[in-house]
């Protein structure tokens, strides 16, 4: 019989205020399962600042400090320093921020925290736009996507910001992508990172039904498709060594985009262009895996 790899404990209760089918709720749930209960969360402005519930209720069963939108990197360092000063060294600090709070407005403080080697885990849950404010373009919005600020006909004309490369440039001990559609992979990476000291970064794809315009029951399937179409590859960078953690799957970009209203306006040429970009990134990733394996051999 297969071993159950997802911890049974639940530190997130029912009653969250997320939309039906919200991928970000699953990100939180798995983070808490893998890392809780001796953790302390800090969360900037993002969907999760609302979804936890209004005062005095919260569906998150660990300490939760709201912080300024652009300051999660500073907040994790402050928490770490405060906990160390108070002798609570066993508590793991977790910054939990969206793509806007990480890739855009929070990039400076994140970079500062990574450069300073802060001993904390940073989770970027990526729904690929400012979803909490109603689907505006972010640096993490993919090329060709509709948002309310990049309407069809003027859809996003720039590539998605590659946070993993930015983080890797800081030579952090551990960085990984993960998906709510592959919880075993996600939890395994979280558990692995827990015992590493220094900054650890997670880029987690969190499909968003209202923002991506698909039916709520498709969230996990769409998350799976993103990985298997290689739009969002699962990999880790462990002390500089790249390792792709899911290679199987030969789905196409077309299958992925045609399920989402945010890509409904794309022409055949545009879909083909995305496929070319995806293939190119995958090839680079494979070569990085190969090259770093040789270096670390």
């Amino acid at each position: 019989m297969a071993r159950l790899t997802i911890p049974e404990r639940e530190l997130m209760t029912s009653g969250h205020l997320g939309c039906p089918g919200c991928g970000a709720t699953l990100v939180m749930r798995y983070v808490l399962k893998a890392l809780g209960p001796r953790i302390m969360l800090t969360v900037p402005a993002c969907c999760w600042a609302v979804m936890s519930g209004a005062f005095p209720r919260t569906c998150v069963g660990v300490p939760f400090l709201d912080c300024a939108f652009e300051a999660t990197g500073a907040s994790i360092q402050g928490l770490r320093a405060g906990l160390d000063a108070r002798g609570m060294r066993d508590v793991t600090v977790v910054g939990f921020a969206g793509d806007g709070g990480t890739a855009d407005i929070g990039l400076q403080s994140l970079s500062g925290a990574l450069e300073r080697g802060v001993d904390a885990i940073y989770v970027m849950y990526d729904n690929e736009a400012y979803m909490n404010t109603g689907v505006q373009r972010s640096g993490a919005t993919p090329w060709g996507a509709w948002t309310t600020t990049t309407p069809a006909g003027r859809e996003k004309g720039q590539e998605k910001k590659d946070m993993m490369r930015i983080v890797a440039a800081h030579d952090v001990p551990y960085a990984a992508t993960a998906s709510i559609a592959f919880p075993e992979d996600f939890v395994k990476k979280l558990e692995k990172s827990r015992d590493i000291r220094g900054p650890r970064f997670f880029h987690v794809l969190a499909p968003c039904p209202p923002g991506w315009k698909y039916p709520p029951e498709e969230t996990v399937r769409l998350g799976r498709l993103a990985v298997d179409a290689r739009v969002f590859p699962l990999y880790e960078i462990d002390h500089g060594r790249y390792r792709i953690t899911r290679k199987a799957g030969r789905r196409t970009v077309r299958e992925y985009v045609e399920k989402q209203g945010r890509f409904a306006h794309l022409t055949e040429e545009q879909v083909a262009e995305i496929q070319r970009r995806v293939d190119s990134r995958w090839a680079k990733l494979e070569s990085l895996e190969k090259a770093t394996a040789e270096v670390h051999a």
Partner: protein
Amino acid sequence: MRTTLTGNHAQSLAAKLARVQVVSAYPITPQTTIVEQIAEFVASGEMPAEFLEVESEHSALQACISAAAVGARTYTATSSQGLLLMHELLHWASGLRVPIVMGVVNRAVAPPWSIYADHTDAVAQRDTGWIQYYCESNQEVLDTVLQAYRLAEDPRVLLPAMVCEDAFFLSHTFEPVDVPTQEEVDAFLPPLTLPYALDPDRPARLGSYMPPEQYMEHRRNVAQGMEAAAEAIGDVERAFFERFGRDHGGALPLFACKDADAVLLTSGTAASTARAVVRAMRADGLKVGLAKLRVFRPWPVEALRELAQRVPRIAVLDRSFTFGFGGALFQEVRNSVQSPKGGPLVRGYIAGLGGRDLVPEMLRGILEDALAHDEPDVSWVGIKEGTAWPA
């Protein structure tokens, strides 16, 4: 122990004596020597604190807020643009009720660039829920940092506090300072006990969303903390006097105001010059006095109203400029002391911006002007009229 210290080193030494646990700062002239000294204290092992060299003032204050949220005693320091960059976090700190103490070296705001004394940086933060002390001497700087911790951490208060000192006039000027022993400071300032500190054994959320049904009560609660601070300032001064044998006169120390025909109200190092001017004018038979605004927040409305019952004229010297009718201190004094039933004449004077010297003749001129007029007015003092700007 009597020694000589700059205002900045008085800040650093006070932070060490206060047994600060987390220091987070970003460099800006003329604040830098505060944190350089603390870095040396930490490096030598004299000060067992976590020292965070962050990448901006914004991050400096966020790191202090987060460290304070788990119950650590925190300190930071900044000036001018750095304080302006912190503006958002100033609100976060007071809203979360974390008793951070911050040294502010008052420096002019750009543009144009200026590194010299001017209170606009801190005065512009008057609405952020921070206690604000303004100091006149380096002794006062050291003592006030210690007092600020005791006040900020008072369970009735739980608000952050700024301890302001004038750029260069205090920050880089050596003065004799009586430095208390660690034992004396420990007896005055017990370790921080934060009632709402985040704790994994009691999971809770700090900073939650609040709907319209709750938000106003929370703001009122913060306001009540500030009102409690107005009461507690006197208690802190008394406790300080009992322990160290000196105090600094509370929120609005008065000098020669009893029978005064006109009182000059100002803050910071201008008060020292003003005191000498008042003495000289008294010697000439002019009945003038000085009200030193040591605490700008909480606003000492009761003390001002008492003063207003005794004196017919108040000349308010703002070493800052905020856009509106007259300086910020002027506006608030006038709002506090005037009513339909009357009140003293309040005249506003803006002077000493961007490090411009506030010389005795200037302050004497202000008091003489206030004595000679019966109408409220606002004027800029020491302006070189006809300054030609390049076309």
